[in-house]
């Protein structure tokens, strides 16, 4: 029982990061019908920023907020440079654009920095554990859970209690009708990218604290996890994205701890098979999203 509780806490820690990534992807999908495969580039740029800031003598207390700022700026730049010009184009065109941004950013880092990964120091406390009775809790997991909760509550407040949030949700439900209500498409889409940048930034802090490395493909794995979590939850559903992230984190940890020794490498493969199985029974994901077709 103790072991299970510990695994659940580990899973919540991992799932919290996935939830933040998935929520950012779901927000963009909601307003643009775009699965943003360039979302991982926010992590990649944040990783290099962390590396360079460490090299310049800064510590994590400065780097953590800097990561959020950089992720937001990157998100806004990507929206302005890449997606604004194809807005209104078929969904497939925007999807191709997101792939283009993904590979272009990777190539730029390979060409002008290096194809090799660069290491930077991880904070020592992430390896610390607190003992409560028989439970051995990793401080890192508790920090991720706390930060995820605060970020999700903040996001919930923003979406439910502010006119920006109401506008964003309206645009996500029916973009054309939202425009008929006077909601400015540029503003709401830019706002969605800023929000996705904040969420990716918070996720990036913890992802990079754990990985401690920057490389051209640093954002690939988090992007895939985020997209998977968003798909599990039901693409376009914000609560589904959070649920999908937590579910993915829990399933991964439970699989890793239960697979026989030496077979933990099969985790990702088994997770994909489980997701395929989920879609056989619930093609719409865990939460059904009602969607209005655009004019």
């Amino acid at each position, binding site marked *: 029982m103790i072991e299970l509780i510990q695994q659940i806490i580990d899973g919540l820690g991992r799932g919290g990061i996935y939830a933040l990534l998935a929520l950012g992807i779901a927000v963009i999908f909601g307003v643009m019908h775009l699965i943003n495969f360039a979302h991982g580039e926010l992590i990649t740029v944040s990783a290099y920023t962390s590396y360079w800031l460490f090299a310049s003598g800064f510590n994590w207390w400065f780097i953590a907020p800097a990561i959020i700022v950089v992720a937001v700026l990157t998100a806004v730049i990507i929206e302005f440079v890449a997606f604004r010009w194809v807005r209104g184009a078929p969904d497939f065109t925007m999807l191709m654009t997101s792939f283009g941004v993904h590979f272009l950013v990777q190539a730029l880092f390979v060409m002008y920095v290096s194809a090799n990964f660069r290491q930077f120091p991880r904070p020592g406390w992430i390896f610390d554990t607190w003992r409560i009775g028989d439970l051995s809790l990793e401080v890192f997991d508790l920090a991720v859970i706390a930060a995820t909760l605060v970020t999700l509550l903040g996001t919930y407040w923003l979406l439910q209690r502010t*006119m920006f949030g*109401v*506008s964003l*949700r*309206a645009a996500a*439900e*029916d973009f*054309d*009708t*939202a*425009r*008929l*209500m*006077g*909601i*400015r*498409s540029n503003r709401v889409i830019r706002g969605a990218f800023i929000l996705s940048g904040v969420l990716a930034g918070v996720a990036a802090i913890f992802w990079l604290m754990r990985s401690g490395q920057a490389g051209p493909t640093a954002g690939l794995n988090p992007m895939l996890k985020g997209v998977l979590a968003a798909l599990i939850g039901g693409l376009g559903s914000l609560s589904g994205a959070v649920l999908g992230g937590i579910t993915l984190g829990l399933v991964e940890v439970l699989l890793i701890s239960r697979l026989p020794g030496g077979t933990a490498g099969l985790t990702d493969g088994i997770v994909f098979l489980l997701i395929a199985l989920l879609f056989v029974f619930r093609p719409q994901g865990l939460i059904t999203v*009602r969607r*209005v077709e655009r*004019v």
Partner: protein
Amino acid sequence: MLDIESLITRYGTITAVRDVGLTVQAGEVVCLIGPNGAGKTTLLATIAGLLKPSAGRVTLDNKDVTGWAPDRMLRAGLALVPEHRRIFSDFTVRENLLVGGVTQPASRRQELLDEMVTLFPVLKERLSAQAGYLSGGEAQQLAIGRALMSDPAVLLMDEPSLGLAPVLVEQVFDLITRLRVSGRTLFVVEQNAQRMLAVADRAYVMRSGEIVADGPAAQLSAREDLFETYLGQSGGST
């Protein structure tokens, strides 16, 4: 107030609206009637900015607003109640109304909200209810209330009675009458021609993308030939 001149809208090679001209004066209720596929909804979507016209001009209060985006059009004073209502079904009734007032300052938004719940008492009772669970008639009232939250100079309505039970259809036309009495300027697209002509000041008849007749609603209502030739219905005034 609202002037449309020589408006043409195309979908690729298909011309859905052909050289349409019409006017709506302040305080008037003007309707556009015609059979399915006449191009009525396309015309409204073009006026509201959802579709770009291929040619022609839209002016509102003598200001050229041709091709303006819907949000800009709304700020200029023109709101549309879309076909099938298209309320935000995941939102509460209150949130739907607030979205309608997004262009208004916060203090004015609250005043407008109070006005809307006075105008539509049924919404007052259901402010916290999820809009997706409203009946067709309630949802139509919400859609109209939401559009009025922007305090528009001209309100466009697309098929407000479409898909409603007969008793609810009567409620919608009663509501149009109330809006008319309160001095609102309305341009209403409606398939229920006879009923609409009974509450409108003037009317235009559209067929195959063109305006084929226009005049005072009472006169058109009496023209049986019009109903038989253009609307595929028998009987004029009711």
